[in-house]
């Protein structure tokens, strides 16, 4: 325990047991209290901002989700009606399915890709810094710019189809067909996410003590054995974190489908955040949008909970 804290506790419980030292103790008590007051004061602005702009909206979302509200008439309580009608709305179910497809298909390939890249970079490579910067570049491109540039590249006579033509593949109507539009969007997600998580894996790899590898070498372990029995197990927490972070990011994808397709063709790229946005700010059905937000919140919460547990692991004793 902290000596200060103990002193404060003592001062609380035994203020006048030893009158001879009470003045000194009271002085110390005041000092400790002043310090604690400063500590509380400097965190208050943060708490105020988070309370008003994070927690209050969440509570309000819960309230709105059981009302009908069109911004013109005052909110009217409707009970579960929003949730029930959502679960029977083919558009919502389709949107949820699109979101799940997007999340699964953009998260699964990123894991081996980013880990593989990190492993390659973790050994001796020529012009390592140049290559690392080059591969990192997608993280730097703003999401809106990315949407514009890839829309251009995905045109029927655009560069993607031209390059595929070199491989003998016929032009693909990327964004104009409901069969391919979602995959086009997913590919961009992978393009952007892979370097990001590569950096996190690299940090994880570099945190593994070199002794482990030296010991494995002495025991005669080969490259694959070292990777399989030392690197992978030690990277497990990092891998879990990468999956969780990536899932959360993928669930929130908005700018790319919004700009590239607006949710079409035939609703094939209308991910949940996009549907929430359209319901609220194009159809002004705030209650329904809030009910959708609650669904999204539950999904995000499950994964965030794992993330928070990872971040705070080993701190229970404190």
């Amino acid at each position, binding site marked *: 325990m902290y000596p200060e804290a103990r002193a404060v506790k003592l001062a609380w419980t035994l203020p006048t047991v030893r009158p001879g030292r009470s003045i000194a103790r009271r002085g110390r008590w005041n000092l400790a209290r002043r310090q604690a007051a400063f500590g509380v004061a400097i965190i208050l602005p943060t708490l105020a901002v988070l309370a008003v*702009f994070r927690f209050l909206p969440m509570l309000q979302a819960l309230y709105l989700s059981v009302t009908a509200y069109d911004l013109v008439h005052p909110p009217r309580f409707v009970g579960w009606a929003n949730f029930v009608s959502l679960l029977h709305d083919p558009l919502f179910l389709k949107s949820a399915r699109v979101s799940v497809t997007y999340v699964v298909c953009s998260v699964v390939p990123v894991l081996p890709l980013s880990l593989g890249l990190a492993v390659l970079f973790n050994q001796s490579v020529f012009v390592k810094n140049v290559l690392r910067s080059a591969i990192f570049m997608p993280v730097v491109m703003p*999401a*809106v710019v990315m949407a514009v540039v890839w829309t*251009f590249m995905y045109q029927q006579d655009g560069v993607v189809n031209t390059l595929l033509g070199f491989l003998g593949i016929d032009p693909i109507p990327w964004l104009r067909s409901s069969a391919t539009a979602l995959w086009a969007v997913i590919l961009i997600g992978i393009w952007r996410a892979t370097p990001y998580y590569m*950096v996190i894996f690299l940090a994880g790899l570099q945190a593994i003590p070199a002794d482990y590898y030296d010991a494995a070498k002495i025991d005669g372990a080969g490259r694959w054995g070292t990777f399989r029995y030392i690197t992978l197990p030690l990277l497990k927490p990092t891998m879990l974190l990468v999956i969780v972070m990536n899932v959360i990011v993928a669930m929130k994808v908005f700018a790319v489908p919004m700009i590239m397709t607006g949710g079409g063709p035939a609703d094939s790229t209308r991910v949940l955040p996009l549907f929430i946005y359209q319901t609220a700010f194009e159809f002004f059905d705030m209650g329904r949008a809030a009910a959708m937000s609650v669904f999204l919140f539950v999904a995000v919460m499950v994964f965030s909970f794992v*993330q928070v547990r990872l971040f705070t692991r080993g701190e229970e004793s404190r």
Partner: protein
Amino acid sequence: MTAAPREAVRRGNASRLGWMRRAMRRRAAIVASAVLAAIACVTLLPFYWMLSSSLRTMETMFRLPIQWMPWPPNWQAYALAWHAQDFTRYFLNSGFVAVAITLSNLLLCSLAGYSLTKFHYRGRGVTFLAILSTMMLPLEVTMVPLFLIIKRLDWANTYQGLIVPFLVDGFGVFLMRQYMMSIPKDLIDSARIDGASEFRIFWMIILPLCKPALVALAVFTFREAWDMYIWPLIIITKDSLRTLPLGISLFMSSYGTSWDQLMAIAVLGTLPMILLFFFLQRAFIQGIAATGLKE
């Protein structure tokens, strides 16, 4: 074929073995570099294509065979695009908003992190968990009521509407707290004995010690703020308050097929981030790495 190394071992010719091992390691490095270079081509293609297409004329835009290097370069698109909309204004708006959000995050996150690591008061643990749990409340979940709150405050179409909800971020607080845990308490105590005021201790001693974490947080926050799209889209309708992402998406919907101009604007919108990346490369990558786990 295998006789040579065995022979070398028998004779104890260590230098020959070492040479072979070096050659093998070299070959592995060559293979790895080649693979990475191929992947780098994929990651860089959109950048190259954006830049080269911004220098093409519309007539040669889709011409085959593919023209990798447009010659002579056509710079017209930049001026045309820039003046088609008030992009100077959008740039300044984005810059102002991103800088304001970054500065306030630096201050508030480090103050909160300092409070959570070096002071003792009742409810500190719960406070930390509450701050951390805001990571579960992304904008995409809270945008509807947040919009209503901003409207109630009459902050739609204002800078404060763009900035104030993001003055501080739960993740930033977490980052600063983790870093500050490693700062010894003795340092603070001895400064107190020397008679320094609490705020002075924070400003003159703690903040300078946190420089690496602050740089990482700044780069991370600035990137997110520069990237912000959904929130300005909801609360900004006035042209003079549009941020760059809004301006670009508007330009896309009204000049959808002027690809030369669109690519020119795309280049200009990426340029600040590329410059930031090249000057602060280490901080940039550390800022991302810091979002991972600390051992």
